[in-house]
């Protein structure tokens, strides 16, 4: 029941991201999503709680709920003048595309043979939806910070997928993925800062012209 609730909330936060027009709000939503997903493995495997899950949960919540938002807000403060999202695809169209992606995820999730016993039947569809929403956010938004957010949502989707089969995934692999995400966000934060210093803006659609 709790896992279902969290997964529905994850789906709703993804839709909120697709319709959100403020970068600050988007960062907070992604942070909330990360915290919820951090609690997911603990709730999904509540009967067989071990140090493994507890450590994973603490690490995820700390990274996605505290460190990433802090890094992104820092990049936002140093690099952004305005805080609008500036989409290629309008917000309402984005939400409609998101709903279509959600339907596709459920259709696909019902047909995907997953070998292990899942904690919830919503798990695979919502993981697929997070992946699709993340990809869409990367493609359809101009601001570099938003593309970092899209990457994080994508990573959250893969993480959700991993929760279902966490008993089979070695602890080290999970930690490695977290570390990768951390390094990626760290590097992208620095890149955003440097792009801004060189070009006076961080809109990726204007990066195809070289500065002479």
């Amino acid at each position: 029941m709790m896992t279902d609730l969290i997964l529905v909330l994850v789906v709703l936060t993804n839709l909120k991201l697709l319709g959100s027009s403020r970068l600050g709000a988007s960062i907070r939503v992604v942070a909330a999503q990360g915290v919820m997903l951090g609690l997911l493995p603990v709730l999904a495997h509540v009967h067989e709680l071990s140090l493994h899950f507890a450590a994973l949960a603490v690490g995820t919540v700390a990274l996605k709920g505290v460190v990433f938002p802090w890094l992104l807000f820092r990049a936002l403060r140093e690099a952004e003048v305005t805080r609008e999202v500036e989409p290629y695809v309008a917000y309402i169209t984005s939400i409609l595309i998101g709903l279509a992606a959600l339907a596709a995820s459920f259709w696909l999730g019902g047909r995907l043979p997953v070998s292990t016993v899942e904690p919830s039947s919503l798990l695979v569809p919502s993981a697929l939806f997070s992946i699709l929403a993340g990809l869409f956010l990367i493609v359809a938004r101009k601001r570099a910070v938003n593309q970092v957010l899209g990457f994080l949502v994508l990573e959250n989707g893969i993480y959700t997928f991993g929760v279902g089969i966490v008993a089979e995934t070695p602890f080290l692999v999970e930690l490695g993925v977290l570390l990768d995400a951390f390094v990626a966000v760290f590097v992208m934060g620095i890149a955003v800062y440097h792009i801004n210093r060189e070009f006076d803006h961080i809109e990726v659609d204007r990066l195809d012209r070289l500065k002479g």
Partner: protein
Amino acid sequence: MNALSFIPLLLALILSPLLFGVINRTKALFAGRRGQPLLQTYYDLWKLLRKGAVYSRTTTWIFRAGPMVGLAAAWVAATLVPLGNFPALIAFPADFLLFAGLLGLMRFFTVVAALDTGSSFEGMGASREVFFSALTEPALFVVLATLVSGADWLHGGPVLALVIIALMIVLLAENARIPVDDPNTHLELTMIHEVMVLDHSGPDFAFILYAAALKLWMLGALVLSMVLPSSGGNPWLSLALVSGGMFGLAVVIGVIESVMARLRLLVVPQLLIGAGAVATVALILTLR
């Protein structure tokens, strides 16, 4: 059809104007005022019914037909709505389509009557009403379709929560309540529903007021049918539950109106699309 199925209709016809009184009392309480009497809407209706109506020379029969068709549609729609554990007076497969259609007919005649006056302000209100209702109607249909598929609290807790959120937004938008429209505003540029009925007077305006109360009651009854627990077939307990629930809902609306500001007109479509999106998520969750 048994005797109990007359109860929702009778309650709707008698008690619906009281909802406005409860909402206004709640708002007055928040603002630190005493507020108007609870029965104020009944006094207004009685006062308006005794007055004569004034018709502009530019208007045609459409203007006179608007309020009457609106009230008639609301009455017919009220026969289709169940209330808590009481069955509806008339029930047949897919009757929710007729229900939504009757609400649409009511709106259509309000809009056409507003356009018939030839006033540009009423035209603006009509345009907004049609725009926003084009966004609330899909949400309403998706909500009803989700309910038809038969979710209950035991199996679909999150689904029902989503449906209730979406339906509350639809209710507030359809009844011109605060996040979408302010029933107390008297600035023509920002009004939606009120501006369309500016030129109606006397009994015509009484019809519109009464039909609006009925509409609020009906959509409220839809919300209640999801929230209220079963009373185990005891009619008196059911009666207490539905009337308590309905006026509880009115208090909730009053609280929402007291703590929220009206949204900018540009943001309203986003809210309504959001309601539709939430309802669609619920539908997908039930269909899987």
